[in-house]
């Protein structure tokens, strides 16, 4: 299992697709808490890997990557991504991100505009803490909390399965033993001026039932080269609409 050893984190990653492809490689980034490299691996990543070199990875503290008590802020996450980018010997890259992963992609492009060809933003929340709605979530009853989770995860929890136990262990670690929530709350919104400076093609994909409809509209209005696509669904489009999502992303990387 390839992993990248950083000073304070180990990142697990997986390469798919032809190394020889002369197209710009694509790195795909999952969201916080419920996400891991499987978010993309069995959907858009495998479809895109037929024509592109694709890398999926587990963010620090997620999936197979080592548990990390800190570094969930965007600055550190962008620096983790930069280390992965360099370890692969890439000169340029396109980025695809879901939820917080989309913000990592956005901030990477802002910091290193010369290194990025294209962006795909799937359900990226602005301001960053908003998609999680942590305070609202923690204030809900247990039943309502469960109802806010993706359907496949609700099913696992209902069964009390091994998957559910592992998921709850992971969530409990991230929420109670790391700085993740604190990092998220302190993260500020991106300036419209910075968005206007992002002069690269951006595919925006949001769910019609998502809480982030206004974010989609703001990004589409502000980014100079954006295209907005809607999918029927909520925040967890990679698990709700994997085939349709892969088709839109595939169309953006011909």
């Amino acid at each position, binding site marked *: *299992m390839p992993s990248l050893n950083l000073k304070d984190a180990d990142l697990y990653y997986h390469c798919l697709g032809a190394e020889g492809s002369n197209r710009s490689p694509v790195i795909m980034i999952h969201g916080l808490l419920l996400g891991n490299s*499987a978010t993309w691996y069995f959907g858009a990543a495998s479809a895109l890997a037929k024509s592109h070199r694709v890398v999926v990875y*587990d963010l620090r503290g997620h999936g197979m990557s080592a548990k990390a008590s800190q570094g969930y802020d965007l600055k550190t996450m962008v620096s983790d991504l930069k280390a992965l980018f360099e370890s692969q010997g890439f000169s340029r890259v396109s980025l695809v991100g879901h939820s917080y992963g989309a913000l990592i992609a956005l901030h990477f492009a802002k910091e290193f505009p010369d290194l990025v060809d294209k962006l795909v933003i799937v359900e990226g929340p602005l301001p960053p803490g908003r998609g999680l709605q942590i305070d609202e979530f923690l204030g809900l009853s247990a039943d309502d909390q469960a109802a806010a989770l993706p359907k496949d995860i609700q099913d696992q929890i209902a069964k009390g399965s*091994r998957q559910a136990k592992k998921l709850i262990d992971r969530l409990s670690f991230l929420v109670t033993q790391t700085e993740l929530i604190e990092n998220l709350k302190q993260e500020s919104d991106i300036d419209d001026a910075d968005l206007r400076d992002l002069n690269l093609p951006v595919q925006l994909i949001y769910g019609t039932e998502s809480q982030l409809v206004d974010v989609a509209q703001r990004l589409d209005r502000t980014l100079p080269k954006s295209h907005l696509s809607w999918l029927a669904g909520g925040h967890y489009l990679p698990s709700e609409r994997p085939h349709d999502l*892969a088709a839109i992303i595939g169309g953006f990387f011909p």
Partner: protein
Amino acid sequence: MQTETSAALKSDTDILSEVRNLIEEIIGQSVDMNDEEISLETSFSRDLEMESIEFVVLSEKLQQSFGSDLDFASWLASKELGEIINLKVSDIVGFVKQCQA
């Protein structure tokens, strides 16, 4: 009896035993199968209760064992959720066999 098979081609029994080893490497001792061995009829979701991230690891290990051309990710991605939930060890063995043909 399979005495004359080529070195590259593995029998169903060999594939099953190799797949079983890979699964055990991933899930270790954390699954209570009531002392039953992993068989062709074992279900990934119901019996092994494997997580999606463990399928990513399985995909990687299958490639290491049976060749990097084996595109487990695409094969699984083409399936509907219901099919994935009902996936059995025999489906994986069949897929590996089909890739070798």
